[in-house]
């Protein structure tokens, strides 16, 4: 091999090597599509044959493929409820982002702020927030507001914590370097801390998005007249398991959709992070 590479034909050899390398990479890409599809199809098959083999009645477990006709029968109804849940989720998430980022800045800006706020924030996470959902109904009624607040209370925590971690992620050498240039605290934030916090913020956001959806649905469980959480409760009360599964499926699509938006934004805003993480020295 080494003789070939040093000989005049080495260009052809290199090309050949590159070609086989590209073929391997294409094969890897195919695998990353085929293998997940396989596991998904396998799951559906096991589900289907379990229902058939054990002869399960439809109110216990519907056949997986019967879920889609259920949605196709009245898509506008699912859409209407999904819209409500999406609105509550996004409102809760927006509130989480605003509050979370502001709190994170205050915590990292001043040690006293950190001492004042951090125990409070951690304490706010030690009780299950679903437990105060009924209180929210008493205080804010049956409208969107209580769902938005529950969604916010669940989702803001990972956003604060991750943004704080990110703002604190510059190593002491980096901070010393900035200080040796006589940089002000605001400049250290603008030039170093904030850019370095962006990827951390996004990993917090990705956790927060799914939690915000959980919050909205839990809020709807407790008291609502619309939304996917309400639809699941209504389906339960009628033993309409197929409708419950159809709603779950729509929720899943909604959650995945939100997650991928966050991931897309992350790649657009912080592309250096992926690259530098791979080759960091």
């Amino acid at each position: 091999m080494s003789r070939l590479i040093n000989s005049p034909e080495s260009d052809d050899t290199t090309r050949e090597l590159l070609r086989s390398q590209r073929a391997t990479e294409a094969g890897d890409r195919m695998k990353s599509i085929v293998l997940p599809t396989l596991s998904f199809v396998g799951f559906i098959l096991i589900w289907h044959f379990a229902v058939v083999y054990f002869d399960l009645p439809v109110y216990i477990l519907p056949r997986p493929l019967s879920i889609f006709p259920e949605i196709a029968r009245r898509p506008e109804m699912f859409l209407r409820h999904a819209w409500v849940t999406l609105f509550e989720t996004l409102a809760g998430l927006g509130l989480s982002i605003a509050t979370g980022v502001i709190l994170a800045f205050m915590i990292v800006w001043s040690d006293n702020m950190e001492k004042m706020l951090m125990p409070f924030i951690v304490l706010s996470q030690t009780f299950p927030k679903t437990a105060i959902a009924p209180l929210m109904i008493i205080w804010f009624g049956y409208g969107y507001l209580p769902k938005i607040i529950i969604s916010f209370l669940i989702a803001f925590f990972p956003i604060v914590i991750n943004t704080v971690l990110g703002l604190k992620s510059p190593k002491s050498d980096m901070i010393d370097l900035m200080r040796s240039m006589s940089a002000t605290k605001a400049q250290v934030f603008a030039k170093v801390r904030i850019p370095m916090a962006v990827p951390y913020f996004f990993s917090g956001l990705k956790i927060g998005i799914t939690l915000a959806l959980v919050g909205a649905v839990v809020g709807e469980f407790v008291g609502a007249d619309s939304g996917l959480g309400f639809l699941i409760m209504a389906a339960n009360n009628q033993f309409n398991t197929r409708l419950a599964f159809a709603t779950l499926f729509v929720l899943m699509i909604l959650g995945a959709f939100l997650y991928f938006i966050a991931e897309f934004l992350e790649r657009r805003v912080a592309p250096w992070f992926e690259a530098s993480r791979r080759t960091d020295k």
Partner: protein
Amino acid sequence: MAVAVRVQDLKKVYASRNGDPVHALDRVNLIAQDGEFVSILGPSGCGKSTLLRIVAGLIPASGGDIFVQEHRVKGPNPNVGMVFQSAVLLHWRTVMENILLPIEIRREKVDQYRERAMDLVRLTGLEGFENRAPYELSGGMQQRVSICRALITNPSLLLLDEPFGALDAFTRDQMNVELLRIWRGESSASSARENKRPTILFITHSITESVFLSDRVAVMSFRPSSIIKTFDIPFARPRDLSVITKPEFGELVLEIRSHITVE
């Protein structure tokens, strides 16, 4: 010749975890003349970096006097450039944008410094890489970028804290030769702009490195640390790696080694 750095009876005391005082530095005395290359040599944990950070104005001294260009050090000084063991580059900026960072911090017009930045890029052999991202560069090249960044403001004093400690031995030798070339090149290429060659304080725990680079080598003892002996390095400049093979070089390294104590 004017004195660039004067450290007099410097003391630094830390509180340890159980509250007992730790004497990191005890009566450190050091003088560096204008344009001199001085290495501070000592075992790990002897407080070399602490000394450098105090001279840089990053941490306060517990006692003694420190002057840079006859001015008492009260805090970070914009006339001082620093290079750390890691290149500490900003990954989301290009090489050029990293080099110009100190200018942004000073809120000066970045465009006025582009030409000088290109001069430094050429001087350090980074030409063609100025628009690359730092993570595309090797460790040695990243460290060159951080040297350019330290030089962009024409500092009169350069503080280097084991800048090549994280590099492999071959790259390290090469970077030492390069550093001398850059340091000397800085003065000749920019003589039209009336820049003086910066004074360098160089922290290292490599005896060979310190003897190869310096005009003087100051040896630090272990805690409580002070400078126990200073050696004049007689070899003529410009130096290349062949100086290392001279018998006088080896004798000097041995002589210095006999003064180094570990714990």
